């Protein structure tokens, strides 16, 4: 994948550099030299471009129009310090705009836009053996609260089965009274929804009083284990959560099965 980054300020480019090193991306930096940019786009055909909006020589939005005229499939991310809304963009530019990256850049956002430019479906890697953690683009997912993380862990343990509110409450808040636990459940649901939507990773279907996990873009060690794809089980499964004990016998049984077959 080829991208170009246009910014008149050197330190903005430097910040990009530190993030792009190590990724399988061919990149090129430009200051506000319009002719050089146009020439590059004509000859090198990049997939995407990160554009600053306010530069002394050129306006990023105008430049975007010209780039689209040269290469209609080019994807644009506006990397800017000021607030611009999609409404401020002309129609042709808006159609090619992937999003806005506000300075100082949020790394999760940057990786998300890079995968959008590459037209790559992102996968979430879920680690359940030992303690529970999730990763997107090799970066750990930071949940908004411990309980929303636990709720997501429970969804993973359910493996795509519908998780009702009552099920979730009885497992995550077993000792709390009903009214209070419902409030805490809604808080966890709301925070989980926020975390996933900020990551642009919508893998949970939030329905009324129940949740359903969409497994398609998830890679989970315990699921693979159950299907015989790996043998990483070491006797520990989501050990931070009390309800996970119920799953241990199943996994142990699978373990002994695989032992006997081998």
């Amino acid at each position, binding site marked *: 994948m080829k991208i170009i980054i246009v910014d008149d300020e050197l330190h903005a480019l430097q910040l990009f550099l530190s993030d792009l090193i190590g990724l399988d991306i061919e990149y090129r930096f430009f200051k506000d030299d319009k002719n050089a940019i146009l020439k590059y786009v004509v000859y090198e055909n990049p997939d995407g471009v990160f554009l600053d909006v306010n530069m002394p020589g050129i306006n990023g939005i105008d430049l975007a129009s010209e780039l689209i005229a040269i290469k209609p499939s080019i994807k644009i991310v506006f990397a800017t310090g000021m*607030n611009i809304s999609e409404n401020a963009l002309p129609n042709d530019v808006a159609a090619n705009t992937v999003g806005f990256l*506000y*300075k*100082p850049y*949020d*790394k999760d956002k940057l990786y998300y836009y890079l995968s959008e430019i590459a037209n790559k479906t992102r996968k979430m890697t879920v680690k359940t053996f030992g303690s529970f953690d999730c990763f997107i683009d090799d970066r750990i997912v*930071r949940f*908004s609260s411990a309980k929303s993380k636990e709720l997501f862990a429970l969804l993973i343990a359910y493996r795509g089965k519908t998780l009702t509110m009552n099920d979730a409450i009885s497992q995550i808040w077993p000792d709390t009274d009903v009214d209070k636990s419902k*409030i*805490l459940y*809604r*808080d966890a649901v*709301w*925070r989980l929804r*926020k975390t996933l939507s900020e990551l642009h990773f919508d893998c949970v279907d939030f329905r009324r009083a129940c949740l359903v996990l969409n497994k398609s873009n998830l890679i989970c060690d315990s699921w693979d284990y159950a299907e015989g794809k790996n043998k990483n089980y070491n006797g520990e499964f989501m050990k931070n959560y009390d309800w996970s004990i119920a799953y241990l016998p199943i996994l142990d049984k699978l373990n002994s099965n695989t032992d006997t077959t081998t």
Partner: protein
Amino acid sequence: MALVVGVISVAILSSTNTSSTVYFSGFLIYFSIIALFLFTLIIIVDCYAMFAIKTSTYHSLLMALCIMVCCLLSEDYLSLLDLSSAYGTVSNIVQYGVYTLFLAIVVIFFDFSYKLGMSKKRKLSYFAVCVLSFVLFAALYRVKLHILAYCLGLAMTVELSYYTSHNPNVHCFNSHSFRPTQFITFALSGLILTNTIYSSGFVENYPFGTTSFYLFTSTLVYAFIYFSFIRKATKRDLANAQYRAKYEQVKSGMLQAQIKPHFVFNVLLSIKNLYHSDTELGDEAIDLFSKHLRAQVEAAGADMVPFEKELDTIRVFTDLENIRQDKELNLIFDIEYSDFQIPALSLQTFIENAIKYSRINEKEDGYIRISSRCENGEILLEISDNGVGFDPSEIRDTSYGIRNSVERFRLLTGVTPEIISSPGNGTSIMIRFNKSSSEKHHENNNS
């Protein structure tokens, strides 16, 4: 007073002349005086509005001017200029002048209709009506059926006035550019009517000539239009202007309250500390802080924001607070319904105050909870905590922020948040409003 003068003049006239035509003339004078009185009243009211709203129009003043100019064109004044010998010619000149003017009106009218934000269909139909009415007008003038021409002009004036006052997107005062057209149509058609009636011999013995008769008809009709449409629009705009002024004041208060130097510097210090221990956490804190600043800047440009966005702002703010505090704040988002708008940064103020004064972090199970639900089309929004509570009657002296938030809620949504608290029993802020009212209220005030 107008009544008294009218009655006296009628009495004088009827005592000097017994003819019924003259009695009718006296009747006219009586009404002209009432009409003039009304007209003066309207001008005074409009002048007040003009000074109260800086972008005001000169509606009634312009109207008066147009009527006066048309009076000068009436046959009384023409004869005063001693052109009686060439009377026929002058009459023709006036007639052709009217034609030309009317044509100009059609063109100007079409042009101005663009500024009214009408749909294309409506504009075209207006243009068609204009052209048609011009043809009709010319034809009617030919066959001396001036009264119909007058009615046509009148109908158009009424239609426009109606459109202005019943369309919230068209501001009486902001789109007054179309008004001269309206005035000229109105005043001229009045003139033609007057000349027609006068020359028809119906009020032949009317001693004050066409001018006063013209004044009578014009002002009476204008008064009708004014009180049925324009007054309404004026009132609306006046209320909006007062609202706007008040709101701007409250909003600037909010912005001032939002700039909290000590908060900014404290956050910067904690970020600096974080970088010494963990650069990853430092990066995160920087992201949070820039999100927070962005939200504050955005709030300066927006009146109402989506509830979800305000919740994000609060989450960022509390995450920042958590960086600085030893104990994590227990903030519970009990959100069942979030598809509505609230004034920007209004909830943040309540949360800030809860953090500052409720002392929930000193409690084992202290919490702040934001609940929102929708019951029978009514949105219930509640911010509650189980902290130390306070006496709501003391808000006036202590918290500018809360008062400001409450005021903005009141101005933007029409509802007043209810603060329920007493020492030792926690605090709860209840806001109830109709699902539709928040949006509607907002739109009206934005247009």
